[in-house]
């Protein structure tokens, strides 16, 4: 499978976009191309990345959800600053993005009810994946996506 055309191919875009300026940002040390003016989340989505954070409780993967700065699902560390809403921050050439995983110690009163449900026939859509090494290049890609 090829990387899906997440950015609209400019040659096919009826709005006739100007070429713009190419930029590159790195996400966990992998470089991704983008265009000046895109948001960091936009660059990542366009590269086929769908999630870049693991939830603190169950370690479920998270990416962008609301796209307008209100859900805080899309947080990442940008140039050393934690908790930046990547759907709102414009990407700047050379930005260094590091994904954030902040596992919480499980509160004793939460014996995850999912363990029972998980073994059922339904696909284990929340089978907490192993959180990757904080700076590993192995953030989950959209199926078949090759990243950069």
């Amino acid at each position, binding site marked *: 499978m090829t990387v899906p055309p997440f950015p609209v191919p400019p040659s096919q875009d009826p709005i006739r976009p100007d070429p713009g300026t190419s930029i590159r940002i790195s996400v966990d040390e992998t470089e991704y191309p983008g265009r000046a003016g895109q948001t960091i989340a936009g660059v990542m989505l366009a590269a086929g990345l769908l999630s870049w954070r693991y939830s603190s409780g169950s370690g479920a993967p998270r990416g962008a959800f609301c796209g307008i700065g209100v859900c805080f699902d899309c947080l990442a560390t940008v140039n050393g*600053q934690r908790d930046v809403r990547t759907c709102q921050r414009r990407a700047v050439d050379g930005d260094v993005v590091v994904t954030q995983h902040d596992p919480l110690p499980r509160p004793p009163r939460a014996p995850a009810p999912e363990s029972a449900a998980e073994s059922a026939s339904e696909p284990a859509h929340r089978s907490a994946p192993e959180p990757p090494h904080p700076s590993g290049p192995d953030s989950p890609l959209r199926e078949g996506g090759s990243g950069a």
Partner: protein
Amino acid sequence: MREILIIGAGPAGLAAARAARARGASVTLLDAADDVGGQYWRHLPASLSAGREDLLHHGWATFTALRSDLDDDPGCRIVRGAQVWAIERGETTGRPDAARPDAARPDAGNRDTGRPDAEPAEHDDRGGHVVHALAGPVDGTDRERITLTPDALVLATGAHDRTLPFPGWDLPGVFTPGAAQALAKGERVTVGERVAVAGAGPFLLPVAASLVQTGTTVVGVFEASRARTLAAGWLSRPWRLARAGKKGAELAGYAAGQLRHRIPYRTGTAVIRAHGTDAVTAVTVAKLDRDWRPIPGTERRIPVDAVCAGHGFTPRLELAVAAGCVLTGDSFVAVDDAQRTSEPGVYAAGEITGIGGVELAMAEGSIAGHHAAGGDTGTSPVRAARVARGVHRDIARRIEAAHGIRPGWSSWLDDDTVICRCEEVRHGPLRDTAAATASTSLRSLKLSTRAGLGICQGRMCGRTVDALLRQHAPHAHRNDNATFDHRPLAFPLRLAELADHPKDNDRKESA
């Protein structure tokens, strides 16, 4: 000169700025985004310009003219990228002699009261509110601190999507329709190749249209309301709809577009589950009964790589609540005929006073800006805006009647479904805790369940948790005034930004 501060530069805030300038007031317009336009006219940044950007928008010429008029106007200062994080109530607020509109009536906000408004006297409605903002890169450090004490304040902070939870809605690849729209209009990125658009409301149509325009295959638009409910809501008194010229044409255009692109539009149908492990790979859709309860045996699985799900909008009320404004029974900002809130000197316009689309937002903005600047009722531009407001409030009522959330949706939840995304509070534990505790207040229910206590401050789940608690803990008396809309800090801040060097980057001004 009277100094007006407008927060939010969407259709409502822009119209308010123009109206206040027409009355000769000095205007400051703040928006957290790095350009004006709000959600409706979210557009490409200058560095991604395009020859035919107008193809992505309705009323694009209206918008660009409005923006350049305001940009060129020395009496209007636009501060882009300015996040308002707090409003303090002034000393003069709450004084008994201040003009208290009938907005305090719990249901005043969504209704045209028909009451001829009293002319606000030039300066006696000054509320003395202090507004704090930070301008600079989003969530950055070293942003510029701005403190403003305007003569009058117009709140136009809009709304965000409301998504009802369903199993799998927390998987990557599930987005709000607004996210798809923002990415498509703002940077020409699409959320997937095969996308299901689901939820309720006319907003699903422009989202499907935008996705198609970005080359995406929309496998279907799944509208939860049933055809008969839609017909009753939209087609009763059709002559009123005909008066709503542009909006009617816009919606009709989308319907035609859907046909042309052969996007199935299924009514009485919902996405009740998203499947996948690390990302969504399929959805289950099912037929719903009139209360939105899935009908057993009608489930169908459709492969997709993204879902856009939204069931309406939630107003962004935190600043209005901080300013002391009274809310309506259905949790919008209560306003009177002049768009005045219950707080002296504070006006509200657009989606925070009721969900009704761009024309209603602009009509309300014009009225709010005019009165905030000391204008009276008889002036002709306001008269036209008042007529438009009446027509479009009527549409808003139809939208609610046709697409409003029905209680049966909660039957598509599993015990395991995440309700609060931040704290990962699941439906089963939430229900059991609510039922088991003798909680007597929303505050203690929040503390014992942890729902709504995460970093988004209950924006995503607040309304849902409220609805579920009502359902599962009807015995609980809500004897505090806690609401999910109360957020003393509108946005999380870095402590360093508050504590350090107030002199260096503090800009204190009167407006």
